[in-house]
């Protein structure tokens, strides 16, 4: 009975959980930060956001005509301003296109290197021409894809999950281990009859526990606020996440296996994470990098994790089809964990 009451594995997990939940900074980075990112990027790239065109009409000849023609379409944000003001507003990026009356017609001022400026110019011109009586010689119709499943936010959320799994594993194990080594707590622990495997397993187990809530929060916000649909099975998703998390936890332990300075481990962790932040397709597709870089890009564990997450969440891929990324992640994890155990310095 006494033995059960003081199960060291349970105590170690409990203690780790308490430490984590009493650390406001950790809570912010793990739970709040990804949600903020999701809302920030989700709003910036929401469907239709880029269809709005800001037009300044320079006061003078034909100004009233242009304002009336454009103002009837809600997609145009029109303002009639003086030439100086138009210039100033354009310079600060507030307008996409300036419209000036010129004799019988109009002159458009815009910067073609700005995203969407060319399209904005065409739409303004179309609207003004139509208002003046233009008729298209060939009828046309468009179909707009805005349904959940193929929007940027759908693509982004699996990337955020991957990013969180990576950060949680690397920081959660790497930083915590070095901090304890620096405080001589590891040394103090191994001076007791505590089993070293209990300690390491507890560290991993508590990490996975935090992960369940992290993933849950991101997915819940994704589904409720952005209408994300998980097309694959939850079991497949859970397996991919678990293997990914264990893999990054192993990497975290490896990075932390010998160093006893927080500064050193922070630098090492950033060094490991930076290429994955950039190359592994969190915010934009890893396919965009040139072919010569692809072997490197694809070799990064986060690329494999993000690929598998997107396949399961967005395409509904069955687990069997994802054996390659899952096996790659498992291999990374096993190698890293094995090397970490061999090199681990307890004091």
């Amino acid at each position: 009975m006494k033995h059960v009451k003081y199960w060291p594995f349970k105590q170690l997990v409990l203690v780790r959980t308490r430490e984590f939940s009493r650390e406001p900074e950790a809570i912010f980075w793990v739970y709040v930060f990804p949600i903020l990112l999701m809302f920030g990027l989700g709003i910036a790239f929401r469907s239709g956001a880029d269809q709005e065109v800001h037009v300044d009409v320079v006061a003078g000849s034909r100004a009233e005509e242009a304002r009336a023609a454009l103002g009837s379409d809600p997609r145009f944000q029109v303002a009639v301003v003086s030439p100086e003001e138009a210039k100033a507003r354009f310079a600060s990026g507030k307008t996409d296109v300036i419209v000036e009356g010129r004799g019988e017609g109009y002159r458009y001022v815009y910067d073609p290197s700005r995203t969407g400026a060319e399209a904005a110019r065409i739409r303004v011109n179309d609207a003004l021409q139509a208002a003046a009586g233009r008729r298209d010689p060939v009828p046309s119709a468009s179909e707009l894809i805005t349904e959940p499943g193929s929007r940027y936010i759908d693509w982004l959320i699996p990337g955020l999950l991957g990013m969180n799994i990576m950060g949680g594993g690397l920081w959660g194990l790497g930083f915590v281990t070095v901090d304890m080594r620096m405080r001589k707590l590891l040394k103090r622990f191994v001076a007791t009859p505590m089993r070293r495997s209990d300690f390491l397993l507890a560290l991993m187990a508590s990490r996975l526990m935090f992960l369940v809530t992290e993933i849950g929060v991101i997915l819940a916000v994704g589904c409720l606020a952005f209408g994300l649909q998980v097309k694959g099975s939850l079991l497949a998703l859970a397996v991919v996440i678990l293997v990914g998390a264990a893999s990054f936890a192993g990497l975290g332990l490896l990075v932390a296996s010998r160093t006893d300075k927080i500064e050193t481990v922070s630098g090492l962790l950033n060094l490991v994470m930076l290429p994955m932040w950039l190359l592994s397709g969190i915010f934009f597709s890893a396919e965009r990098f040139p072919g010569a870089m692809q072997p490197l890009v694809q070799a990064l564990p986060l690329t494999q994790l993000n690929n598998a997450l997107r396949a399961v969440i967005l395409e509904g891929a069955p687990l069997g089809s994802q054996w390659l990324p899952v096996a790659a992640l498992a291999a990374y994890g096993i190698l890293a964990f094995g090397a970490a155990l061999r090199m681990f310095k307890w004091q």
Partner: protein
Amino acid sequence: MPALAIRCKNLVKRYPGGVLAVRGLDLEVREGECFGLLGPNGAGKTTTIEILEGILPPTSGEVEILGHTWGNGDIEIRKRIGISLQETRLSEKLTVRETLRLFRSFYPGGLEPEQTIGLVSLEEKADARVGKLSGGQRQRLAVACAMAGDPALLFLDEPTTGLDPQSRRQIWEILKRFRNEGRTILLTTHYMDEAERLCDRVAIVDQGRIIALGSPRDLIASLGAEHVIDISVDDGGATAPPPSEGDLRALPGVTSVRVEGSTISLTVSEPHVAMPRLLERLGGGGSLTRLSMRHASLEDVFVTLTGRHLREGEAPA
């Protein structure tokens, strides 16, 4: 003759890089005694105690703890010893009780957190976070963690360094009670008053070796006299030359003389004989700016043996 709790023979520790921290150290600590390793910083005390604790491997030498040796009976030893390292920063986010429950869980048998809290009188802080404790309270918690497994043998590396006098006395009381239950303590310290008040026997360690061993009383008695007179003389306006070391040593009742800067320390066996003759001798030799008499201490033993002080740069007490 009680059994031995600790026995080590010809202990040597050479660190990578060649520094020889311990150079052939023999030690026997009996069950039930409080034993102190006294010495200045860098003497090899921490290296020695960490080898005995099984944390550091020795370069050579034999170590036996409670009848077991490291490498054969590690778990048996670990279950029965308690340790407080020189610096362990326990998790600040945990409470006292949570910390003790964790340490308790590492041992197959031991004391309930309530009991260890009681032993170190931290009842009022039981649910306070470690980060909110004072230095003395943290050190008491460290001692409580060492007691979590109800150990037969306690290792403490500088248990009161950096604490205020009241906190030091509280730690001493805790350790005395522990010892009075018939258990063994090995501690390191560079405070001679700590060694004198707490320890049954003391080994004076210097440069990786034991240079003196015995009870504090015996060690002090080895000086040949129990009192020390410290004087300072200002020889400005002197009518006669100040007394030389030889002159002072020739005075009746003086066993040794030590000059350090402007302070002269005389070890005397019979102060009532030596003092009047000393004052007489100093009569014309400048003005006396300081005169004090005290009991000889382990510090004097150390200075007599090595010519240095336990704590570098500090004047004799």
